[in-house]
């Protein structure tokens, strides 16, 4: 059986030529193994950022800011200049970069512990000043890097290593919905919540990320793209189970879609 297949391929002319390429690794995504767990959303979102940077041809004009969290090594995977910030401070670091290099495209990439717990003040004030940059917010409802502790975005009754009996909202508070806070701020230009759990959602998420870069040409304020993401390892699920959990539990609490769009785009 195997031999037959080999023969068939050999018989054909070589189709692996550049003219036939319809899909390849984006240039900005470096050809190195990633440390992410199987099924994790971080890798997918990295790829989308790389595709967008390639398509906009802004590799030489983009500066990223990596957080402390699972994506701390984003700079080893994305081939643009990068600053690795202290935990929670990515948007302040991004502010410093954008203020001294206003003609560059600047984005921060942050988890929920980073952006919505230790870095809440920086997030809010970066948005309130309307810094002309893109914040990509990976909301997986848990602290991935440190091994599954409760995040500000952990769902009610959801178990984590520090809410082993489930998040008790009486004592641990309710999940913090960051977009609810920042949508009040006039200086935020674009807010959207996306996911990368299906092919369709991946396409939409990519469009959102692209807008976050393109809007920087307009200098109209901050773009905030939240990705509701899975964390199979720390949710203690298979990737498939984690995708189901996204749909069943996370999306009802964090509904997908645009939250604030520029005036002219309002339908």
């Amino acid at each position, binding site marked *: 059986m195997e031999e037959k297949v080999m023969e068939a391929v050999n018989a054909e002319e070589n189709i692996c030529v550049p003219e036939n390429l319809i899909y390849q690794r984006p240039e900005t995504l470096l050809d190195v193994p990633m440390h992410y767990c199987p099924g994790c959303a971080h890798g997918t979102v990295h790829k989308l950022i790389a595709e967008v940077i390639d398509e906009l041809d802004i*590799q*030489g*004009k*983009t*500066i990223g*800011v*990596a957080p402390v969290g699972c994506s*701390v*090594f984003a*700079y080893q995977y*994305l*081939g*643009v*200049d*990068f*600053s*690795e*910030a*202290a935990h929670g*401070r990515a948007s*302040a*670091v*991004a*502010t*410093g*970069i954008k*203020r*001294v*290099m206003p003609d*560059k495209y600047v984005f921060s990439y942050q988890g929920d512990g980073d952006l919505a717990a230790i870095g809440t*003040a*920086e997030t*809010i*004030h970066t948005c309130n000043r309307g810094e002309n940059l893109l914040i990509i917010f990976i909301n997986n409802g848990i602290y991935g890097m440190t091994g599954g502790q409760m995040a500000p975005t952990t769902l009610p009754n959801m178990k984590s290593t520090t809410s082993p009996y489930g998040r008790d909202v009486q004592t641990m508070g309710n999940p913090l919905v960051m977009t609810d806070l920042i949508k009040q701020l006039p200086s935020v230009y674009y807010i959207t919540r996306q996911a990368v759990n299906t092919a369709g959602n991946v396409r939409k998420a990519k469009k959102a990320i692209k807008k976050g870069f393109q809007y920087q040409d307009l200098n109209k304020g901050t773009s905030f793209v939240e990705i509701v993401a899975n964390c199979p390892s720390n949710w203690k699920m298979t990737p498939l189970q984690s995708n189901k959990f996204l749909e069943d539990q996370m999306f009802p609490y964090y509904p997908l879609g645009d939250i604030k769009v520029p005036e002219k785009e309002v339908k």
Partner: protein
Amino acid sequence: MKELKLMKGNEALAEAAIRAGCDAYFGYPITPQSEVLEYLSREAEKRTGMVVLQAESEVASINMIYGGAGCGKKVMTSSSSPGVSLMQEGISYIASAEVPCLLVNVQRGGPGLGTIQPSQADYYQSVKGGGHGDYKMIVLAPSSVQEMADFVSLGFDLAFKYRNPVMILSDGALGQMMEKVELQPHQERSTELLQEWATVGRTPDRDSNFITSLHMQPEQMEEVNIHLQNKYKLIAENETRVECVNCDDADYIIVAYGLVARVCHNAAQLGRDKGLKIGVIRPITLSPFPTDYISKASEQVKGILDVEMSAGQMVDDVRLAVNGKKPVEFYGRMGGIVPTPEEILAALEEKLVGGK
């Protein structure tokens, strides 16, 4: 022609920043140094296009510094003791990632919220690495409004020469008092101050640059540490600065820095009026510390008095320098009180001259 002005220390520092071609200032108000942010907010952008941003906290401002400095720009912040405490994590990252920047601490009395009066109680924090890990800043200690101004461009030069954070360690009196100051001519803001290591947008001829302090392999992390320690050694060899007044014939030496050194000059004069030969050594760089200089100077004297506006912090380094060869005594006031020349002389007489 000389450009002379009567200015507050904080304002002279701010004016010097504009003239030094500083690209950006990020800061948060705190007494006794808010004039720096206020002065720059008024003057800087309209004159040179320098970025001036009031951050939401000192935590944010030091991280804005990290970002801006990572772009190879001349960036600075200033604060006073409680605010500088908040910056320590950021300073550790900056030192590790080796991004050059200028930080200013106009010290006030502590601990805690403390007072708004002058103090020198942040010596340990500044020279021993107030944040985590084995790092050192270069620490410059001005003792006049003139030096508040002069140390800005010196600080930037050293920061860029060694890719290291530089701190100007001042105090509330130097920040608030007015003195004559000679201002340096304007330097161009060299916006093209692009360093080959900086995050300025990748060019096709190179891999991407990253500013990071993360090294997961212990061997690699140790390499970074060895590199930093070698750099600090080089800085100590090349950049140690100290001033010495009337030490040649001195029987006693007072060691003091900053504002207190000036009070000590008066104390020394009072002593000489009474026939006591007193000299004053003023470390200008607190880090690197003039260890060898003080060690040598101690050989020909009977004793040394260290004077500080603290419970005695620099005195540890003086004792290490003297290494038991001669008595080293300490006199200090705390909590925002500046010692008088009379007090200092009395302390010297009591601890070093009298009877012993």
